[in-house]
């Protein structure tokens, strides 16, 4: 391998300490930082000056959500509790772990439970299901604490009324995400928790077959709302928690609700900026 050796030698010569030159780490840094690859990724040097600190945030798609400068109270944990950020982080954790779990899981009566058992017994060092489940519990808690903080600092007041509303919808979506995921392991806990939860839909006014006013929705003697056509049936895709419910909850859990939630999150974050950044006393 003469070529590799030659190249290594040339590198050695290049970085050999010489009189009047900066130390090696700095020169390595300059070499990498000056390369075409690096400069195509990041169009600025290290954030040593205020100008580059601004550029870091402005020219990076992942960071541009932030303003370049921010009120000092906005970075204080004492003020923000970091709960909104943690909720978003947990959403990302749920997305990644959920995606990996989808490799092993089939939402049918035949396979659902067996797949979880297999996952448990066959996959070495598996903590994805644990991360997903505990992360989901944690996300419900952080989203409540986030709402609690926003209330206690009066941050829902003008001009942030609309964003508070987006947040309320996101809170409900978080609960629905957790609720739909609850069914998927298809064990006794899952099926009966969902049975108890969805039994309420039977009693929906007008739209549930045991709800007040549902008798009014009838054409002559023909009832429009019965156990095979009411709100609970629409939710479960059947008269009880079975194959239809499992598939519906799976699709809503993995695709439907996350899509809506991600869209609303984008609006939520964008709106924080447009409403003048994180709240603070005027």
């Amino acid at each position, binding site marked *: 391998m003469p070529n590799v050796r030659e190249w290594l030698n040339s590198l050695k010569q290049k970085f050999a300490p010489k009189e009047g030159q900066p130390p090696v780490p700095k020169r390595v840094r300059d070499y990498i930082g000056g390369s075409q690859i690096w400069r195509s990724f990041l169009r600025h040097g290290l954030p040593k000056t205020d100008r580059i600190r601004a550029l870091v945030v402005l020219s990076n798609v992942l960071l541009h959500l932030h303003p370049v400068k921010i009120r000092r109270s906005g970075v204080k944990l004492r003020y923000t509790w970091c709960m909104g950020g943690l909720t978003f982080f947990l959403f990302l954790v749920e997305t990644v772990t959920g995606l990996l779990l989808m490799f092993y899981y089939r939402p049918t009566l035949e396979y659902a439970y067996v797949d979880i058992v297999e996952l448990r017994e066959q996959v070495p060092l598996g903590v994805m299901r644990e991360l997903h489940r505990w992360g989901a519990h944690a996300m419900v808690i952080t989203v409540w604490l986030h709402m609690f903080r926003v209330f206690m600092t009066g941050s829902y007041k003008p001009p942030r009324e609309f964003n508070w509303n987006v947040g309320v919808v996101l809170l409900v979506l978080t609960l629905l995400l957790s609720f739909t995921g609850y069914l998927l392991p298809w064990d006794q806990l899952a099926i009966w928790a969902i049975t108890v939860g969805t039994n309420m839909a039977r009693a929906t006014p007008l739209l549930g077959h045991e709800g007040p006013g549902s008798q009014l929705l009838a054409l002559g003697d023909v009832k429009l709302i019965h156990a095979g056509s009411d709100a609970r049936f629409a939710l479960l895709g059947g008269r009880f928690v079975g194959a239809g419910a499992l598939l519906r909850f799976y699709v809503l859990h993995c695709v439907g609700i996350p899509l809506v939630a991600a869209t609303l999150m984008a609006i939520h974050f964008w709106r924080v900026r447009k409403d003048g950044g994180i709240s*603070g006393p005027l």
Partner: protein
Amino acid sequence: MQFVKDLFNFLSSPAIFFTLVIVLFFVALRTRRLWTDRVGTVALVAVVVYFVVSFFDPNFKKVVTAPDNVPIVGMLFLIGFFAWFSLKQAYENDDRMARGEPPAEKLETDEKVWCWPDLVYTELIALLVASIVLLVWAILIEAPLEEPASITVAPNPSKAPWYFLGLQEMLVYFDPWLAGVVFPSLIILGLMALPYIDTNPKGNGYYTFRERAREIALFLFGFLVLWVFMIMTGTFLRGPNWNFFGPYEYWDPHKLVPLNNINFSEFIWVRWLGTGLPQQWLAREIFGILVVLAYFLALPPLLARRWLNDIHRKMGAARYAVGIVLILSMIALPIKMYLRWIFNLKYIIAIPEFFFNI
């Protein structure tokens, strides 16, 4: 020891526990001296000691350490901590403002910092800490998996996911169309309406109690006393057949609780007038209907004229109407709970013909 356990079991029965929590809530909210570092530390130590000591009781340990109940215990600590933390800052700011100084956040607002590194590094550290906590939690506690699902074998008790246990607990006092549909919808609508009803311009962007005492008291009453307390009751104190069990009580599936609840119509027609129930539902339930109508239609104008005069004038008719109906709906829950506990009242209006029971 058994005496202490029996005492705690007795104190945690719904009527007594709820009353204690309400009294404690309103007294504590207005007591400035409680919201200090010292009292917070003492309270934390007391609760931790209570949990550690109680762990020696097998019944307590069994319920509290169920894997899916661990996050609820964590939530109780977190919500307790942050309630104390926010009120501490609120009262400190109130003290500052009473001295003519701006709130503590104001000093920090005037100064701006670079997003890089101040914010980005804070986020990175938070992300790392959260990842570590979550990983350790995931490694230590395995996600539970019960027997395969069976539609024919119902576990006793069958419980909804823990964050809906407040609603399930509400089923003790209200029918599903209220506890499961109307009240949850009102909670969501109420939260959404909040910024449009609350016209108080003060307290925007900093912790304060004095400037928004009413709003904070109402919100925390709904969040802490009703929502979180009911979840705690539903998780830890409700066993087989949804019967009440004290924290140190064995969950006996054969526990018998007499059901002797009676409807408002029976109070009126049978006990008071002594005529027996009329056959026709409207005649039978007319008093209950009048009571409920009076609660939602006559009470708001009366309140506006008498006690909430200034609020009514400040808010305007539309805001007042929406706000007062939401608040009355919220207070309807504790009212119904006390009616149940004191008079064994089942329904104020009972029209099972139309599934319409209140």
